[in-house]
């Protein structure tokens, strides 16, 4: 096994499976036995992937023998034999365990031709392709078992069809494609996920953000459950409903088996999420029974739920489902309309922006994460295994992306036109010299080097259950060396222990076959976060953007694995780096989720980074650069259309520091509109506001602690003040601004007051006399603001 990616995948699957053991049976409906090889019991999936790894680690001769069994004889045109049969069938032991590989000259039991004649087509086939075929062989064997065991005739039929399909694909070395009258996904638009998210928007957008978030979380949980729910068989359906639409259900059931259910454990087949390829019709067929089963399951397992989530689920979820039921079966529900948008203009988007219907799979991965917070860790909760083959039909994403365009957005044609000019090499000025531009993105060089194959990134880890290959072990040693040289304060033994710990993984940066950097991390899927343990680039390769590119790769890896939070204890030298990578000291993950999991270091700062699954991190800086170019072009176009030159503003020369945007001549003609958020609450009469503010300012100026803020800071007293503080402000300047009628809204006034305080805190140490004054003054003016009714009490 030469591919390190496959190696790295192995421990992950195991870790995930063990992390969520016990889930399989609970998510699947009644009547599921975990021994059923094709049912999505986790052990089943785990077994399949272990088996694949085992088979792929065979020596070549053994692999050929295995494939020979599924390969047609090519000895002569007349030979009809379609698979080599071992003349000495193993008696008791399974043939693929310890037995010696059959020799190529061994004759076939059925046609008498040698094994070599059956596998001649594999002679020049790459190892990767062989491994792909072997994966299908394992899946075929599993399907064979399933066909054998399945009692439901409809299901049995489908398994048999898939079995034949995969056999044919091994024979022809082709990619499996489910053919026939099933059609191809998506089968319905809008899909269930969109419908449900629309429903949340439609029904709950009037709620306060917190409650809205709750509903959003419930919807996400519901969607995950659906994706891992086992549907009832057509026979069960017919008996339950007594309706004559059973044929339609049977079709959907067959599609679900082929595209969603079987691929969960059978990765030779492309896999789709139930909620993304099916829509209202399927939901109609299954909702009643699924709801009953779901509620029953939560009732039974309520003791395992986290206390704070228990109430949520037990009180809100039934209601949520009832309301959803109305929309599913109701006649005129708007949530299933293809171009559903919220009627009210002020409907805030719910929770994370990922809730928007366009997000497709990201919304799902987001919800996986938050679901794990709903259920306590000891059960592993409903967190499902997700293979990394979450492929969305391209068309779906694209079309939806167009649909949610904002009101007043520029038309797509214009964007395309602009894109043409910026990508057209002839329209560009001069050759690209991105290496020399001082504003080139930090990771630009690293990205180019990766594209040219100069550097590589691999997630690797040690494993105790199987022998790691030599290259992986060498790289782990290399990582251990890089970390211990770059982090001299960490004991070497400690680093070694963690790098070689099978629960830890490391994203390795390889250049010329040698490790030059890496990030060692530990994933806690049940806790919904990953701990960054060590992060380093060897000193002579620093300042090349490798650190940024490493972290971006790690982010994408985690999005693929549905973990959206990074936590790390950063030492004083690392804080700067982590800040640049989007980490902050503001921790959003609740303490209960990481306490006792993460390694605590004395004197280090806990930092967190929240990932957004919609961002392709390794390309982000490139995308932003592109967006800037587009906007620049659009501005140029607009400018050439308007072509009006106003005399410049003179008020700044007269000492005004800021004016309201809308008073700039010509700004409205450009299409700019003031945000009318605050308009409603604003004091209507400008003179009333003016007098209120004047009064207030006078009171503040007479406050005993206002003395440090009376006048602009003098450069003679604090030479570097204006280098540190970018927007200086003081009470004298504010008085002038007030006189100049700058404060047309209370917001502007309060912002300046607040800036006096924050500037002071930024420049002075917290225990200084100045900061003490700032603290008292802040309390004072907030009291006054409330008193005067300028802010809510």
């Amino acid at each position, binding site marked *: 096994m030469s591919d390190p990616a496959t190696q790295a995948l192995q421990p992950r699957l195991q870790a995930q499976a063990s992390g969520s053991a016990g889930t399989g049976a609970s998510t699947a409906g009644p009547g599921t036995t975990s021994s059923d090889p094709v049912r999505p019991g986790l052990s089943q999936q785990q077994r399949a992937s272990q088996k694949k790894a085992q088979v792929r680690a065979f020596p070549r001769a053994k692999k050929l023998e295995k494939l020979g069994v599924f390969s047609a004889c090519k000895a002569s045109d007349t030979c009809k034999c379609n698979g080599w049969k071992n003349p000495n069938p193993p008696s008791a032991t399974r043939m693929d365990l310890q037995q010696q590989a059959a020799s190529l000259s061994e004759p076939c039991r059925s046609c008498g031709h040698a094994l070599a004649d059956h596998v001649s087509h594999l002679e020049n086939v790459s190892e990767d392709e062989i491994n792909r075929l072997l994966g299908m062989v394992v899946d075929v064997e599993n399907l064979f078992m399933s066909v054998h065991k399945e009692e439901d005739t409809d299901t049995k039929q489908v398994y048999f069809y898939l079995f034949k399909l995969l056999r044919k694909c091994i024979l022809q070395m082709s990619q499996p494609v489910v053919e026939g009258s099933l059609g191809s996904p998506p089968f319905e638009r809008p899909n269930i996920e969109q419908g449900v998210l629309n429903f949340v928007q439609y029904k709950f957008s009037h709620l306060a953000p917190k409650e809205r978030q709750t509903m959003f979380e419930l919807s996400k949980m519901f969607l995950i459950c659906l994706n891992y729910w086992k549907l009832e068989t057509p026979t069960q359906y017919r008996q339950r409903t007594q309706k004559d639409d059973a044929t339609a259900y049977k079709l959907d059931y067959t599609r679900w088996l082929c595209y969603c259910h079987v691929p969960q454990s059978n990765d030779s087949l492309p896999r789709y999420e139930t909620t993304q390829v099916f829509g209202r019709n399927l939901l109609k067929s299954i909702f009643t029974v699924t709801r009953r089963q779901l509620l029953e399951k939560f009732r039974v397992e309520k003791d395992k739920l986290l206390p704070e989530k228990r109430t949520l689920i037990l009180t809100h979820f039934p209601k949520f489902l009832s309301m959803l039921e109305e929309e599913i079966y109701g006649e005129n529900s708007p949530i299933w309309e293809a171009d559903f948008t919220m009627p009210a203009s002020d409907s805030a988007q719910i929770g994370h922006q990922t809730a928007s219907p366009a997000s497709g799979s990201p919304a799902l991965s987001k919800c996986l994460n938050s679901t794990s917070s709903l259920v306590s860790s000891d059960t592993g909760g409903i967190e499902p295994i997700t293979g990394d083959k979450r492929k969305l039909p391209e068309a779906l994403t694209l079309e939806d992306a167009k649909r949610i365009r904002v009101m007043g957005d520029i038309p797509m044609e214009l964007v395309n036109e602009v894109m043409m000019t910026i990508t057209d090499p002839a329209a560009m000025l001069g050759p690209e010299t991105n*290496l*020399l*531009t*001082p*504003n*080139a993105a*930090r990771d630009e*060089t690293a990205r180019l080097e990766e594209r040219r194959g100069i550097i590589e990134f691999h997630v690797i880890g040690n494993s105790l259950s199987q022998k790691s290959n030599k290259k992986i072990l060498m790289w782990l040693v290399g990582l251990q060396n890089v970390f211990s*040289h770059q982090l*001299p304060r960490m004991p070497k033994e400690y680093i070694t222990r963690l790098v070689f710990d099978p629960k830890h993984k490391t994203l390795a940066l390889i250049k010329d076959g040698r490790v030059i950097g890496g990030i060692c991390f530990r994933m806690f899927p049940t806790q919904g976060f990953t701990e960054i343990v060590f992060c380093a680039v060897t*000193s*002579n*390769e*620093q*300042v*090349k*953007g490798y650190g940024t590119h490493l972290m971006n790769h790690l982010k994408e890896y985690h999005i693929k694995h549905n973990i959206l939070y990074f936590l790390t204890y950063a030492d004083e030298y690392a804080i700067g780096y982590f800040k640049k990578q989007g980490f902050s000291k503001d921790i959003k993950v609740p303490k209960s989720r990481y306490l006792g999991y993460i390694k605590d270091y004395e004197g280090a700062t806990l930092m967190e980074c929240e990932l957004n699954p919609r961002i392709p991190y390794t390309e982000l800086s490139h995308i932003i650069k592109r967006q800037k170019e587009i906007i620049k072009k659009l501005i140029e176009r607009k400018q050439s259309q308007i072509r009006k030159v106003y005399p410049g503003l003179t008020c700044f020369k007269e000492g005004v520091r800021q004016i309201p945007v809308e008073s700039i001549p010509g700004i409205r003609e450009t299409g700019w509109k003031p945000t009318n958020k605050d308009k409603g609450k604003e004091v209507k009469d400008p003179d009333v506001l003016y007098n209120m503010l004047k009064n207030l300012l006078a009171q503040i100026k007479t406050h005993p602690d206002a003395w440090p803020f009376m006048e602009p800071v003098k450069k003679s007293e604090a030479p570097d003040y204006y*280098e540190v503080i970018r927007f200086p402000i003081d009470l004298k300047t504010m008085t002038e601004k007030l006189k100049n009628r700058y404060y047309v809204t209370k917001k502007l006034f309060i912002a300046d007051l607040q800036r006096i305080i924050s500037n002071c805190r930024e420049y002075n140490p917290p225990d200084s006399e100045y900061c003490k004054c700032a603290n008292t003054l802040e309390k004072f003016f907030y009291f006054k603001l409330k008193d005067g009714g300028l802010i809510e009490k």
Partner: protein
Amino acid sequence: MSADTKIAELLTELHQLIKQTQEERSRSEHNLLNIQKTHERMQTENKTSPYYRTKLRGLYTTAKADAEAECSILRHSLDKIAEIKSLLEERRIAAKMAGVYSDSDPPRKTMRRGVLMTLLQQSAMTLPLWIGKPGESPPPLCGAIPASGDYVAKQGDKVAARVKAVDGDEQWILAEVVSYNHSTNKYEVDDIDEEGKERHTLSRRRIIPLPQWKANPETDPDALFSKDQLVLALYPQTTCFYRALIHTPPHRPQDDYSVLFEDTSYADGYSPPLNVAQRYVVACKENKKK
């Protein structure tokens, strides 16, 4: 005449010279072919007649003249390149001075460190290779050959400068000469790292000018540091010089030195071999340990 038009003019001339080089080459090729053929004929006839001798003498004389003509055009082109580079350098210094003296309010956007490192690498790559006439020995500041005792580095020249850091430690940094005061014999230099942004006034003992030409290992191997020699070398991706031993000198003109930095974090006291360009390797003056 502005620097821009001057540079444009020089570039046109350079272009002409390159074309001429090609013409020269095509012409001498004919002659070289003739020489080869004559040799072959002589070989088949197996004797050296006076006729051939005279003929060959004539041919060789022409060939030599051709080669010299081509050589002089190439040297001329190199001069042009040097001239263009010095104009660019002048312009850079002028821009820098302008920046320094107009203490304008918005602070100059400092270069990202990665960009600075790329610039340093490029400057090392484009350092001209010294090409002497036959028998001529390489001048000071070519490769390992130190500057003469009374040499004064010019404004804008890059040097290794020994400065005292805030914590009192002495350190060799990469710096750029701002001025030299002949009465005090002191240099003013700027830290190349804009984040440092510091100006140092240092005595000339604390300054080592960096080489201004690369030495060609094929023709002037003596102008290179030899294996195991103690040097100061710029640590890759930094702006500091550290003590190092030469591991292998360059083999070809574009090659770097491979050096072993003194590093106590390694068991044998030296880092694994790292590449450093000729531009950033200078003789280590101090003999006593720091």
